[in-house]
């Protein structure tokens, strides 16, 4: 049951070969048997079963939509009214949002059955899911390894078939990197395509919500339900949505693929390089033209990203002051102590590091050298990528330079950790859509390939990824259940 695609589940539900109640119970059972992965922060069986019963009524009436009755989970960064929203932090460990995120609302309106909230790096800051206040998440492919981050809970849960799909958020690679590490498919849409309202902000100009699932086809159905203009988000774009599922089977060619030379440097795992080369051949055999790209700005992607992301984060996280909601220290004698101690006691080390970095780069005397400079560099990065994407339909490369690393590895060296984002941050800086799909294994660990396209080219990216997944079965390869997490 859990290996069905979303389209197959929808068909089975609509033909009443399967009920949402059965499906939901099945996934709840799988979740409770896989507690060791620690993929979830909250699970609400009662709510889930009630939602499934509602969905079944809709399905029996024949009013089911593509996602009606299918179980799913939200990354715990999306505000939900019916479950706590912790953002992986002690700061919000007891926070119950009085309103729901636009994306939560939209999926609920489609009849999605919410089972729970997935684990994540604290405030989405991290690429190993080790900064969560609720403990690290394990990679179902190797339990001593990270699932990636920050949407590690969603990725791990999907890879282990605990849930057919989940939402994620991606500020610098937080959907694509865990998707790559866990062997699933994940899409970061164009900036402005999916509403940010109700998604707790990390870096507002980079944050974007997106779907995570097994295949490009699954992603197309979820994106259709999630995306679209939201008047509550000033940066959301008001334009009609294409029919993503309908675009999946469009002709592949003519197709020009850009391969940046910088994506194939010696520090990139050679098995990964080989897997990408093999994957590109699939397109080549179908008639795609390969263009070598020189992205000279690439060495500045990560430094530029960290200046801007930290600057925005330092301000976005100022509202967590212990006054109106969230954690409040019991040890304060003055206002300044209340704010300082609440933040000191409730934020983890990585969050503090980024707040400090961001505060520093915005401070008078440093602002011009860091923040202003980073904004200029960001513009140059955008221009270079847009110029490249005027020549090619898609830029392809590895999603990550290595496969999932061991839990605890590199934890003492944050700058080395930040290099896990080396290929993914560019899409955020330029607001471009990018997705990651599985393209093979290296020593038993999944390899992800990133496809990055021009603004609003989601249909095309999904079309390419779907073509690839029609030719290969990496996306259907699942970790061995017998290894102990079930």
């Amino acid at each position: 049951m859990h290996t069905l695609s979303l389209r197959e589940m929808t068909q089975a539900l609509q033909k009443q070969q399967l009920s949402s109640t059965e499906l939901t119970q099945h996934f709840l059972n799988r979740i409770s048997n896989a507690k060791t992965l620690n993929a979830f922060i909250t699970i609400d069986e009662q709510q889930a079963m009630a939602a499934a019963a509602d969905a079944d009524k809709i399905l029996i009436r024949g009013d089911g939509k593509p996602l009606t009755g299918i179980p799913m989970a939200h990354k715990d960064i999306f505000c939900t009214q019916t479950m706590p929203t912790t953002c992986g932090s002690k700061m919000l460990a007891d926070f119950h949002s009085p309103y729901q995120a636009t994306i939560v609302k939209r999926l609920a309106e489609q009849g999605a059955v919410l089972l729970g909230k997935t684990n994540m790096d604290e405030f989405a800051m991290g690429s190993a899911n080790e900064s969560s206040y609720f403990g690290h998440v394990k990679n179902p492919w190797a339990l001593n390894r990270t699932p990636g981050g920050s949407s590690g809970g969603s990725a791990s849960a999907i890879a282990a078939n605990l849930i057919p799909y989940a939402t994620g958020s991606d500020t610098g690679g937080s959907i694509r990197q865990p998707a790559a590490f866990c062997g699933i498919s994940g899409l970061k849409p164009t900036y402005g395509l999916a509403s940010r309202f109700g998604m707790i902000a990390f870096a507002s100009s980079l944050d974007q919500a997106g779907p995570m699932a097994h295949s490009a086809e699954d992603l197309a159905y979820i994106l259709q339900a999630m995306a679209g203009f939201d008047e509550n988000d000033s940066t959301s774009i008001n334009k009609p949505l294409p029919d993503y599922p309908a675009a999946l089977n469009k002709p592949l060619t003519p197709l020009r693929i850009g391969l940046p030379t910088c994506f194939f440097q010696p520090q990139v795992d050679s098995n990964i390089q080989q897997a990408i080369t093999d994957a590109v051949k699939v397109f080549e055999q179908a008639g795609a033209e390969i263009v070598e790209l020189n992205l000279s700005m690439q060495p500045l992607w990560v430094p530029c990203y960290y200046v801007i992301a930290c600057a925005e984060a330092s301000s976005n996280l100022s509202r967590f002051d212990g006054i109106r909601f969230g954690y409040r220290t019991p040890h304060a004698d003055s206002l300044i102590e209340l704010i300082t101690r609440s933040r000191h006691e409730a934020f983890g080390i990585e969050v503090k590091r980024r707040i400090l970095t961001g505060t520093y780069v915005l401070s008078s005397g440093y602002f011009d050298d860091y923040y202003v400079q980073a904004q200029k560099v960001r513009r140059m990065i955008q221009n270079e990528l847009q110029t490249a994407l005027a020549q090619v339909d898609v830029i392809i490369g590895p999603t990550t330079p290595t496969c999932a690393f061991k839990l605890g590895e590199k934890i003492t060296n944050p700058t080395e950790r930040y290099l896990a984002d080396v290929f993914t941050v560019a899409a955020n800086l330029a607001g471009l859509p990018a997705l990651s799909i599985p393209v093979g294994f290296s020593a038993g660990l999944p390899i992800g390939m990133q496809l990055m396209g021009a603004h609003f080219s989601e249909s095309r990216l999904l079309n390419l990824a779907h073509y690839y997944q029609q030719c290969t079965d990496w996306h259907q390869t699942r970790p061995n259940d017998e290894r102990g997490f079930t």
Partner: protein
Amino acid sequence: MSWETVIGLEVHAQLKTKSKLFSAAPTKYGAPANSQTSFIDAGLPGVLPVLNREAVYMAIKFGLAVNAEINDLSYFERKNYFYPDLPKGYQISQFQRPIISNGYLEINTTHHIGKKVIIERAHLEEDAGKSLHEAHPVYTGIDLNRAGTPLLEIVTTPCLFSAEETIAYLKSLHQLLRFLDICDGNMQEGSFRCDVNISLKRKDCPQLGTRTELKNLNSFRFVEKAIAHEQLRQQDLLEAGQSVLQETRLYSPATDTTHSIRTKECENDYRYFPDPDLLPVKISKNDLAQVEMDMPLLPNQIRADLLTNHSLLPEDIEFLLSSPALFRFFKDVQSKTHAPTKILINWLKGTYSAALNEAGMTFENPLVSVDHLASLLNHLTDKTISAKNAKAIFASLTAGADDIDALIASIGCQQVDTEEGIDEIIHAIIANYPQQAADYRAGKEKLLGFFVGQVLKQTKGKADPEQVNHLLRKYLA
């Protein structure tokens, strides 16, 4: 030594929008604490601001009124600091690129007619909430009703050189904002707040001295007093060879002094940067044209217009300009009455204002309607009622009566205005008081009042006093 005072002003004008700058919550003053606070105003996790275009429209209106540049592209920035009544830990304001720049407002003082006060910039920003220190014995309460209310911060260059100029500018600005209908101007409620930047320099010195910033000035009188006090304080320091500290000082009306609340060293580094949640504010030629069409008459235009009526004194005109509601009421009545404008103004200034005062009301909520007052003044002008009766009828109208024709009829006071009727009465009275008549004729002119009184008494007030006066003078001559 001779010192020159240099003053620059920052006025925070609360814009009269229906909802807040970045949320749909209402902006009414005085509602129960936190009853006008949306999740956005409270800065809950995940919320996002959406700009209220009405505030932009009002800012443009102001810019046009002060001949300023309306910037086709401006943007919002975050001013970061921690304070309990600042829910997000930053205030959304405009810093590098305000919506309005380089305008001016003309003011008149005793020494300078038509002085141009340079308005360097005016920018949009959101207000903070309020800390309620008295609401609870142990805790400080936070009321976020005001949080997110739109403000237009209007900043002058240091181009004012006295308290008189400062007050003249503030009053003109206050009047302008009210006539533009973008700010209610209520200083007590904080809708019009003024910070004074003041420094002293030697008369011949081109360089400005160190300034202090004065706050908590919620009336024009306090502004004047605070400036006077601060001028003296700074002068004493300078003359004693000490230097003025750059600091923020709070005026306390109780002691009529200022005291330091913050020195420059303790000021926050606000870490301004463009707010990534908001798009830049774009103003098209089309937007401008639209606002231009909606521009009301400005106080200076009204003044010039009224001056063409030579019977009006400058103080009459200033009276009419003292509130937009009053001016509107005046214009409405004027369009419906054939009474001379001067008479109408006298009524508004005297009887009408007195009645409003007594009722604790303003022209915003007229006690007697435009139609009633127009009708009353028409009857008066046509001499179908006397001034005295007009006042009596007015009193009934203020007490709630609303059928003016019935009032005129029921009070039984169709004015005695046939010359014969009054002639007879006057002749009889002069005959009844021969001694007084003789004294009057001998030069005791005060006695005219006595005769007027007698006539009015006999006619039970129905006679027109003006006519009685005229006839008495004629027959006593």
